[in-house]
């Protein structure tokens, strides 16, 4: 075949690569199986599962990569996860979130359920047939039990994914349980800020009053609140600004979100939102440091001292940090 299957390890991300390889080389693999008849040859219906799992792992790995960024916002991460559930609902026909009564009313012979999500086996059938031209023939040839098991397995994968991804909550309380109020964190982009009344906005920013008072002055929190009112007013009265804000979505970065609102009139509001937006949505940036660490101190450089290792890491960001402070402070 002159091709090598990617290494499969215990990480699910490697599954995305392996299933893709199987999908690309399916014809050659089938030829090989026909000529050699290996004992471990997969059954014919397995190839249908393969195509579904390739779709599933591909979609998830794209979302997984998209939430890892140096300046990804919590909102962007949530939007990426919502999009993933949305793709599964659209592609496979998963329904949800449904209330307990609606789930209880479903016929379990024709549906697969998990938590608040459900999918009809006929929808799974339609989804599988759409994955490749040869799949409907394979499904038609299979016996009823195998076919039903296949639909249930694949359906279960998607509904479990939808249910569990939907319940991901990054904001935790002191017990590391999901935070009681999912809307407790203040919004950081203009399109959400203009939706809040002055009272709602003040409620949300009040948590940081002490910090702001300590750094600036006691009146700054009111200045920020005034700027929010001014933004709401500008949104209603300035069509250009309204259009710009309406273009912003949960997928926008902080810079994209605020670039449309030029000028100094919202400076304190931007500063406030900027600091709140520094909340890390995950630890992927730290994991990337460990990647650098493992790369630099590999098996051939076990004697690399900690100061040498840290020197490499600091040297990597030296030029970037130099650009951050204004010129008058750059004379160190």
């Amino acid at each position: 075949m002159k091709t090598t299957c990617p290494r499969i390890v215990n990480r699910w991300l490697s599954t995305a690569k392996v299933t893709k390889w199987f999908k690309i080389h399916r014809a050659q693999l089938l030829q090989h199986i026909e000529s050699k008849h290996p004992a471990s040859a997969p059954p014919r219906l397995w190839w249908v599962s393969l195509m579904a799992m390739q779709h599933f792992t591909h979609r998830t790995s794209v979302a997984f990569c998209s939430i890892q960024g140096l300046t990804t916002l919590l909102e962007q991460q949530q939007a990426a996860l919502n999009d993933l559930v949305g793709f599964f609902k659209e592609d496979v026909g998963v329904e949800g979130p449904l209330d307990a009564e609606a789930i209880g009313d479903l016929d379990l012979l024709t549906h697969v359920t998990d938590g608040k999500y459900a999918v009809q086996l006929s929808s799974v059938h339609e989804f599988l047939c759409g994955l490749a031209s040869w799949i409907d023939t394979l499904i038609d040839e299979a016996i009823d039990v195998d076919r039903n098991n296949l639909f249930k397995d694949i359906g279960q994968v998607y509904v479990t994914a939808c249910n569990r991804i939907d319940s991901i909550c990054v904001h935790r309380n002191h017990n590391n349980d999901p935070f009681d109020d999912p809307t407790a964190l203040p919004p950081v982009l203009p399109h959400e800020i203009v939706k809040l009344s002055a009272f709602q906005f003040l409620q949300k920013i009040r948590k940081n009053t002490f910090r702001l008072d300590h750094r600036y002055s006691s009146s700054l929190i009111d200045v920020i609140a005034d700027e929010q009112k001014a933004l709401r007013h500008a949104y209603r009265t300035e069509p250009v600004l309204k259009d710009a804000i309406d273009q912003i979505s949960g997928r926008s970065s902080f810079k994209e979100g605020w670039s449309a609102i030029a000028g100094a009139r919202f400076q304190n509001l931007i500063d406030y939102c900027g600091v709140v937006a520094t909340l890390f949505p995950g630890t992927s940036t730290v994991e990337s440091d460990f990647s650098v660490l493992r790369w630099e101190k590999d098996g051939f450089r076990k004697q690399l001292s900690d100061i040498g290792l840290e020197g490499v890491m600091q040297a990597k960001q030296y030029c970037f940090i130099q650009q951050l402070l204004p010129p008058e402070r750059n004379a160190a």
Partner: protein
Amino acid sequence: LFKRVDDNNLEEVEQDYSYSVKIPASKATLFDLAVRYTSCGTSFRMTAEIIGCTYDVLGDPRLRHCCRQDVSNNYIRVIGAVNLQRISDLLSRSWGFSLALDSATHQSTSYLDLRFRLFVKEQETIVCLHGCSLPMVDRHTGEVMFDIVTKFLSVLCPELKIRLVGVASDGARNMTGRVAGVLVTRVASAMHESCPLTRIWCGAHQLDLVMEYIMNNVIKERFFGIMTAFISSHAAIEFDRRHEDDLPSHC
């Protein structure tokens, strides 16, 4: 190479001192090159060697006389200090910042890595900066890690209790996560009572857990069992062939 300039105003103060480092114009190229070579991962000795080789080929007088001690003591240690000073300045200018931390063990040494995210007002941008990878030579209990973290952070930002807005960790995925979880709890309890901390459990780790659950519980036997059996049977054939190649007497 570097001239340490004492700040006369601070001379009488015992601990609180400052110094500035001036790079002579003649050494600026050498310094830039050393920083860039090191950022590519070279050790101090290798950096000095490579600069020496560069001088041999180009004959540029600005690259003369670079020794290992210069690279380690005068360049890299200094940029480490300058970086941390810059981060400290940036932290003190802002009313808040966030922290991400995690630990990992590599070649029998555990490292506790810290990253900062802060907002640079002048540029209206959020930046993510590497703080430090702290090697842990002591026991790895939450308390010891808390001591290390607070010692490091209190130097960078003396007003940590008020400035820290949120901490992200990898939650309860494994023992490391649990230790980090304890660490976050200790940091949260050390905060000023009017400055509650926002805790974040990494979204990517949670998605990872969802996927692991699906792969191990939903579709393991009827999909993965078959796939791995098929791959491993062929890997065995490949191994046999290689083994035969190594033993020409079999051919």
